[in-house]
């Protein structure tokens, strides 16, 4: 499959990943994350943007990066059959690039997870992030807290 379109690339852990630009709503400078008690793994809290709240998905568990975020990538994903908006903190520069999809999931290296394809841009190959898979994998409710106990 050869498809040329625009992508947003950003660092996650030691690797750069790409998302189709149509999936990315905006890039936000670091802003306050409001946290409150909940039971979802990997959800740090919420950002407030123009009167709406956007959940922040912390991907450190999956990608291992821990530096303070330089940007939040606000992107759409499908989660449990619904389209949701999520903020992904990334540490480093984000780029809008033009590229060509040169492979699908089966062509991706086996040790790279959450990759739906490979993008060729500017003489390098960047894995295309499967955000739906990442979010589905990372964001899970912890059942232990869901059980209520009367004191």
């Amino acid at each position, binding site marked *: 499959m050869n498809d040329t379109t625009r992508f947003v690339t950003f660092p996650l852990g030691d690797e750069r990943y790409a998302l189709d630009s149509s999936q990315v709503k905006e890039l936000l400078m670091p802003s306050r994350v*409001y946290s409150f*008690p909940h*039971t*979802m793994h990997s959800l740090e*809290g919420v950002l407030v943007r123009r009167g709406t709240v956007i959940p922040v998905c912390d991907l450190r568990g999956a990608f291992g990066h821990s530096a303070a975020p330089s940007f939040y990538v606000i992107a759409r994903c499908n989660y449990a059959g619904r389209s949701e908006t999520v903020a992904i903190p990334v540490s480093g520069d984000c780029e809008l690039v033009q590229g060509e999809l040169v492979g699908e999931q089966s062509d991706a290296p086996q040790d790279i997870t959450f990759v739906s394809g490979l993008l060729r841009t500017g003489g390098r190959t960047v894995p295309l992030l499967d955000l739906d898979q990442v979010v589905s994998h990372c964001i899970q409710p912890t059942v232990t807290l869901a059980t*209520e106990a009367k004191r």
Partner: protein
Amino acid sequence: MADPVRKSERRPLFISRSVKPVAATAGPVILFTAGGMRFAVEASEVEEIQDRDDRTSIRKLKGMESIDFALQVGLGAGILDRFVVLKPGECSLGVTDVERMASLPKVVPLPGLFRGAERQWYRGLLLLENGVVPLVRADYWRKAALPAAETRSGA
């Protein structure tokens, strides 16, 4: 036959469509702290607020059930200095402090990625000038505090 002139006079020049609001407003809410975090409950759901000493004597009389709110939402055992008594007065939320009331705050639904017990705990999120505060779902906490009463009423 209908008069065409009169008919056109009745036609509105502009059709205004209601736009779905991003945030609605809630009624007055009571802000409280538990486990070091802020929460809110609708004032219309609250019977009264008691302090620890009041409650000790009242509980002996009425057998009121209470829950440690901080503990229930995973913040660990809280300091229970105040008790937010939910209507009709059979149960209360043990909290650290009651801050103030806020009127007509904006409330937004919990984002869909939150799919765990928090959907039962909270009705939504309040957007206040200095933060985002979960609005607790009084009916859920009433049931959590009074399972025995629920069983009795369901029987």
